[in-house]
């Protein structure tokens, strides 16, 4: 069980919206509004716990777009189940609403 912080919850919340879709770090940073250090640390922790898997994207895709390859993350079946559980907890729901307001209003 990885350490559950509010930021971890926000990331899981974002991932669980479409569990089958692979996401990359920068994309999650922008979607959730967290800093690089926070996001990659959470990704590492969730991957280690087996909630996420990651792989390099298909070379055909990034070469066609003329940019370096991305590392793509996806929820495992266990991760998806746990993520749904975490984000449906009343405590998380309450906190995340406040946190989102702070993040989007640029409180810090």
């Amino acid at each position: 069980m990885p350490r559950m912080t509010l930021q971890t919850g926000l990331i899981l919340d974002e991932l669980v919206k479409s569990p089958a879709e692979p996401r990359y770090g920068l994309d999650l940073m922008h979607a959730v509004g967290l800093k690089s250090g926070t996001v990659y640390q959470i990704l590492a922790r969730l991957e280690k716990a087996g909630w996420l898997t990651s792989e390099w994207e298909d070379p055909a895709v990034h070469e066609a777009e003329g940019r370096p390859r991305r590392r793509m993350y996806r929820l495992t079946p266990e991760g998806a189940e746990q993520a749904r559980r975490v984000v449906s907890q009343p405590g998380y729901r309450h906190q995340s609403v406040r946190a989102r307001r702070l993040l989007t209003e640029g409180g810090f």
Partner: protein
Amino acid sequence: MTMPDPLAAAVSSYLPAEDVRFLEQAYRFAAESHQGQVRKSGDPYITHPVAVATILAEQRCGKDLVGAGLLHDTAGPVPERFGAPIADLVAGLVRLEDSHDIESASDGVLRLKLADRLHNLRTIAHVLPARQRAKSAETLRILVPVAERLDLTDVSRELSALASGVLRRTPRVLAAAAILLPKSVRSRWVAEWTGELAALPTRRGRAGFVAGLTIAMPGLARTLRRTERSGGNYVLSAGAIAATFLNTGLTWPAAVVAVAALAGLAAVLFAGDGTAAKRLRALIEAWRRR
């Protein structure tokens, strides 16, 4: 004063003697005009127009385009004796650089611009990093497609290799901080971040990305190391380090001095040059092998 060899050989291989003599004069004028000027690399400035003209000659361009390569950076208008076509090409290049209007530039001006950028990218190591990135991004976005449209396959390939090389370079701070990560996974994370950095458009965004990672690096290293050893081992090794300190009979004030000295050593190592990170890494690795 005669044209340097690679250029002389290139133009004589396909242009009539008359045109070669004409280019010889253009070269002399350019060399006098750039007398005393140097490139950022420290090379005499004339090496740049000569290289641009050589690139154009290798594409077997006509005498006017090669001549425009030689004269494109000379001060003031191109003298009348070199003819209107060269003057137009050079004026067109200046206009293009002011307006960035690719659409209204002639193919000749675009070829001149591509050769100019190609040599500038070949020698970009001497330019400030932020400018290197800006020029490289612009090259990929605007000039590589132009080279493709003009069927200059070799130019397009070289431009895009040089420019993406600059954009995919790992910032030194990040490479140094990543030393904390376990060796087995270090290159994966560094490659991942370097790739993301290339996608960030602003300098401010990239600086924030690198700063955030650098600050989080010790925490990330702890997270990743826990996968390599069990938590118990981790505590044990911390205990072992503590015990070593105690065994040497250090009192607490002495320990504080020792830590400060280590920090000082690190500061001295990093304040030096680019190889400092490598030296620190060698030190840490020597210590880990012990």
